[in-house]
């Protein structure tokens, strides 16, 4: 039972992070390698808002998430917009550079100390028994709930809302989308905003569960194989990919060697790239476009 819960929590973490990669990739074919850093930035923003609104944790939380969304939009408007039309690779490298910049800035602003946003908010991380047989932390449960909600929300948004449909349209054929009067800049900015929003939820929840320091960037990177295994342009794929990677990792810890768990996501990734490079649910044409 505990095994299943552990897999579920880890899968929720990876899925929540992976959908940030997918959202941007799907719409603009850009792989955002600064996702981990943006995630970390959000968690640090929470630290600041928590000290500003120390009486109202919920306001602090909302403010941090909202700020993160703004950061995403601003990143697009001031940086990535200039890279549209350039080589995809140049855009990806720009995100790498952005990541390096953010890593420096975070240390300059918040120092490299280990931080505890949960403490700053005055929250304790309770442990909740599940079905009598296992236990889950409050933050872990929140992670699973938030991931479910966000995926459901994204699904409904992309399926039924007008902007969601336009996002899908722009991802399939940006040229035609522009011809149909869709302003690509608005769509891309929206995708970046949504992506940092989901990343912020992930970063904040992880930091509430187990503290915050710059190693969070690496967690962001570890979730990347999940997105790729599922197929970079598919949300369902990201969910399933996260589950596969999380299961592989936890089972490896349980039954083989904990140290291997660190490289297992990448082994699965390579296996996938050899067998089916476009991922489980990805579109096959993708390969020739990049």
């Amino acid at each position, binding site marked *: 039972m505990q095994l299943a819960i552990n897999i579920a929590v880890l899968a929720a973490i990876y899925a929540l992070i992976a959908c940030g990669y997918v959202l941007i990739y799907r719409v603009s074919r850009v792989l955002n390698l600064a996702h981990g850093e943006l995630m970390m930035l959000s968690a640090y923003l929470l630290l600041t808002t928590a000290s500003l609104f120390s009486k109202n944790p919920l306001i602090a939380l909302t403010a941090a998430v909202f700020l993160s969304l703004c950061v995403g939009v601003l990143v697009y408007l001031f940086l990535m917009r200039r890279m549209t039309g350039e080589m995809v690779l140049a855009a990806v490298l720009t995100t790498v550079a952005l990541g390096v910049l953010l890593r420096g800035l975070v240390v300059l602003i918040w120092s490299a100390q280990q931080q505890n946003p949960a403490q700053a908010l005055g929250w304790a991380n309770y442990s909740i028994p599940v079905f009598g047989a296992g236990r889950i932390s409050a933050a872990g449960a929140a992670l699973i709930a938030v991931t479910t909600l966000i995926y459901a929300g994204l699904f409904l948004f992309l399926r039924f809302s007008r902007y969601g449909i336009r996002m899908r349209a722009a991802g399939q054929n940006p040229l*035609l989308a*522009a011809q149909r009067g*869709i302003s690509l800049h608005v769509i891309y900015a929206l995708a970046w905003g949504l992506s940092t929003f989901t990343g912020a939820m992930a970063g904040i929840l992880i930091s509430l569960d187990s503290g915050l320091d710059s190693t969070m960037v690496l967690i962001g990177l570890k979730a990347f194989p999940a997105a790729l295994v599922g197929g970079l342009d598919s949300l369902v794929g990201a969910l399933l990919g996260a589950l596969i990677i999380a299961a592989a990792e936890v089972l490896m810890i349980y039954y083989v060697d904990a140290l291997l768990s660190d490289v297992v996501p990448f082994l699965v990734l390579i296996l996938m790239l050899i067998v089916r490079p476009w991922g489980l649910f990805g579109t096959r044409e993708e390969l020739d476009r990049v």
Partner: protein
Amino acid sequence: MSALLRIEKLEVVYARAITAIQGITLEAGKGEIVAVLGTNGAGKSTTLRAVSGFLGLDDARVTEGSILFKGDNLANRPPYLITKLGIVLVPERDKVFPNLSVVENLAASVPARGADRKRLEEMAFTFFPKLSELRGRTAGLLSGGERQMLALASAIVCGPELLLVDELSLGLAPVVVEDLAQRLVEIRGKLGITILLVEQNAAVALSIADRGYVLENGRVVLDGDAARLKNHPDIQEFYLGGAGERRSYRDVKQYRRSRRWYG
């Protein structure tokens, strides 16, 4: 005649070196269907791209002349602003979003300023009743003719004043083309919009057009009323298959045409 669109002495250069269009002048009045004819490489598509703002993607630029739409010069403006003005292009290929359903394809269109989306969508379904049967179908699974219908319908939802249609007949059966052509006439009648039709198939184009232009090697070589163009001996010979194989007028040693440069 007050021209809705007036292209004047337009010159387009690709990659700073190749001049694809060398001084075209053409006009389309409100409510007109204007056909632009020509063989491959004559500069038809480039003209359409220049109007709809997509030259930049192919490293091309308007270097001279102007494209006036209701008096505004559109040369080298970005595409999405042009669509906002009410100029909508139905491209030659990749004309629908293959992974979206029919309804979603229509929903993806952004109506021009001040247009009533509901009414436009209803209109689209009245012009193409078949689409309402196919509502939930994924666009990628539609037949060629259905796709063209969907493309036209999506363009209508954008609320155009000027509809640019690139190769309506490409790859479609004659019966289907005939039907679609009639729809265009109907659309023009009901919505009162202007349609610029770029075609290789001169017979179809001239059957519904009010006026026509013939382009060769980046220049207008003939223009005039559709009916008169249809009966013009050169058109008969080179575009309507009157004299067997199509050839360019340059291949003919003696040509008896009245050339009129720049209208």
